[in-house]
C-alpha cells in the first residue's frame, strides 16, 4: 500500500504549481492547529485564500468535491480563523477555497471553487 501522505504531498505540490500559474502567491503550507490542518495558504490581491486540496485517481468513490462534508467545512473555517487571529494582521479579507484534482485517463483535471461558504 502506498503512503497516503506522500501521495497527498505530490498533489499538493501540483496544486500549488497550478495556483501559482493563476497568480496566487504562497503564504504558508500545511498549517497545523488544534482544530485541524490547512493544505495551502495563498494570497492574491490582498485576499487570503485557505485552500483544501483533494485528489481522486478515479470517480469510483465520487468526485473530489463530494469528499467535503459539513464537518470538514466547519473544521476548515475554525482553522482559518485561528490562523488569521494568531499569524496575520495585514490581510483584510480571507476566504476558504477548494481545489479538486481528478485524474481522467492520464490527464489531470483541476476543479477550483473559490469560497466554499458562498
Amino acid at each position, binding site marked *: 500500500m502506498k503512503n497516503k501522505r506522500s501521495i497527498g504531498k505530490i498533489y499538493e505540490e501540483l496544486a500549488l504549481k497550478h495556483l501559482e500559474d493563476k497568480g496566487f502567491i504562497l503564504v504558508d503550507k500545511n498549517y497545523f492547529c488544534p482544530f485541524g490542518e490547512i493544505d495551502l495558504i495563498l494570497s492574491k490581491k490582498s485576499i487570503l485564500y485557505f485552500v483544501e486540496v483533494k485528489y481522486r485517481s478515479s470517480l469510483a468513490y465520487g*468526485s473530489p*468535491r*463530494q469528499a*467535503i462534508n459539513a464537518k470538514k467545512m466547519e473544521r476548515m473555517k475554525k482553522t482559518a480563523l485561528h490562523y488569521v487571529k494568531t499569524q496575520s494582521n495585514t490581510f483584510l479579507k480571507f476566504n476558504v477555497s*477548494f481545489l479538486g484534482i481528478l485524474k481522467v485517463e492520464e490527464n489531470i483535471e483541476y476543479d477550483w*471553487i473559490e469560497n*466554499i461558504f*458562498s
Partner: protein
Amino acid sequence: MYSRIHASVIWGIEGQPVEIETNILRGLPNHIIVGLPSTIVKESKERIKSALKSSGIRYPDDRIIQNLYPANLKKDGSHLDLAMAMGIYVCIVKESYKIVETFAFIGELTLEGGILPIQGVLSLLEGLKTSGVKRVVLPHENYLEASFVKGLDIYPYERLDTLIRDIESNSLKVGSKLVSYEVKERKFDKDFSEVIGQKQAIRAAEIAIAGTHNLLIIGPPGCGKSMIAQRLETIMPKITLEEKIELTKIYSVSEEESPKGLIQYRPFRSPHHTISRIGLVGGGSAILPGEISKAHNGILYLDEVGEFKSDAIEALREPLSSGSVNLSRGGRSLNYPSRFALIATMNPCPCGHYLSKEDLCTCSHYEVKRYIGKLSWPILDRIDMTLFMDRVENSEISNASNQKVSSLEIRGNIQKAITFRQNRVMEAKHEKSTKESNGILDDNILYGLDEGARSIAIKYHSKGKLSMRSLGKLVGIARTIADLACSEHVEKNHLLEAYSYLTNQQMSNFFT
C-alpha cells in the same frame, strides 16, 4: 443555469399555482429548497437525486438552489417531486427547456424513477388552470380522474426515463380519449318496501330528499325512525358531474378516506353521537373537513340527535343556513362547502312515549320540556320539517302486503321532481330576465302560489303563527310538494300538506 417550472399545491380544497425556480451554482454539492417547504418537500431532494440518476441523468456536483414561488404560501405534498426533478433536469439539458417551459408537472417519484399517483389531482389541476398552463404531465394512474377537468391537455406518464426520452425527441404523448364509462346502479341491502305502514313518514322522507329539506323525526322507541332514516340512502337522486368533482376534492383532502378516482355516489354520513365538534364541522391543526363537508350534496344523518354534544350541534347553525363552513386556525382560514340534508331522529321524552297513542308516558311535564329542550330553538328553526311518528297499528300489519312502495319507485318520483324543478327554474329565469328588461320586478316570497294557496299563507302569517323565515320555509316545502306532483303552481292542498310538516307547528305540541 436557471429554469422555471409550473406546478401547484393544495390550499384547503382549492389548488394554488406555484412556480419552481431552479438555479445551479458552482460550489460544493448541496441542494437547498426555499419557499416554505414542508418536511415532505424537503425530503424530496433524496428521491429526486436517486430518480434522476436511475433515469440516466448525470446529477450535478454543484450547489442546487430551488425556490418555490410564491414564497409566503406553505407548500405541502409529495406531488412536487416531479416538477422539482424537471427543474434540475432542464438546468442540465438546456435544449429541453424550450419544450418543458409550457408544461406543468405533477407526480411523486420513486427512487428508481417511477412516477407514483397522488391525491387531490382535481384540486391541483383547477389550480393550474388559473395560472394559464394548458398542458400537464401527471402520473398515469391519475389519468382517469384528471380527464374530467375540461380545458387541459393531460400527458400521463408512468416513468421518468420515458418522459425524459419523449422530451428529448420532442414527442410527448397526450393521453388517449377515454371511453365514457357507465356508472353502475348501486345495490343496497335495504329497501323501503321492507317498511310496514308509516306511509306519512315515507312521504315526508320523499319530500325531504326531493327538496334537500332538513328533517327531524320524533317518535317512541321502536316505531321505525332509524329504519326510515337508514333507507334514505336508497332514494337519493343521481349526482351530477360538477357535484362529483366537488365531492372528490373534499374527500381527497382527508387522508384516511381519500378516494381512488372520482366519487360516483351521493354521500350518506351517519356519525355516532359521541363525535366531537371538530369531527362534525371540521378543523384541527391541519384544518381538515368534518362530517358536514363529507356529507356535501348528500345526507347527514344524526341518530338520537339529543345525545350529541350540545357544542357540536350548535356549531351546525351557520353551515345549516349558509351551506358552507369557514374554519380558521393559526392564521389560516379555509372554506369548505357543506350543503347537506340534515336528517335527525330523537325520542320525545326520556321514556320515549310522550304523545304516542297507546303507551302511557311516565315522564313529568318538566322532564319532557328539558329533554326536547336539548335542541335549541335556533337549531330547530333551521330544520324545515318535523315529523311525529307513532307505532304502527295492528290493522296495518295484517294488510301490509298490498301497500308497499319500493325505493326504486320513490327514487323515480324524486328524480322526476328534480328534473321538473330544473326546467321550471330555467323557464322562470328566462321569464324574469324578460320581465326585468321590461322594468317589472317580481321577487315576492309568494311567487308561484295560486290564489287559494296565497290566501292561506297570508292567513297563517297574519295570525302570527309564522315568522318570515318560517313562511319562506313553508313556501319552500310546498314548492317541493308541487314539484313532486309536477304542478306548475303551488296549490292549496300542497300548502296545507307543507304546513303539517312545519317544525313550529309540530313543536307547539310539546309546549302546550
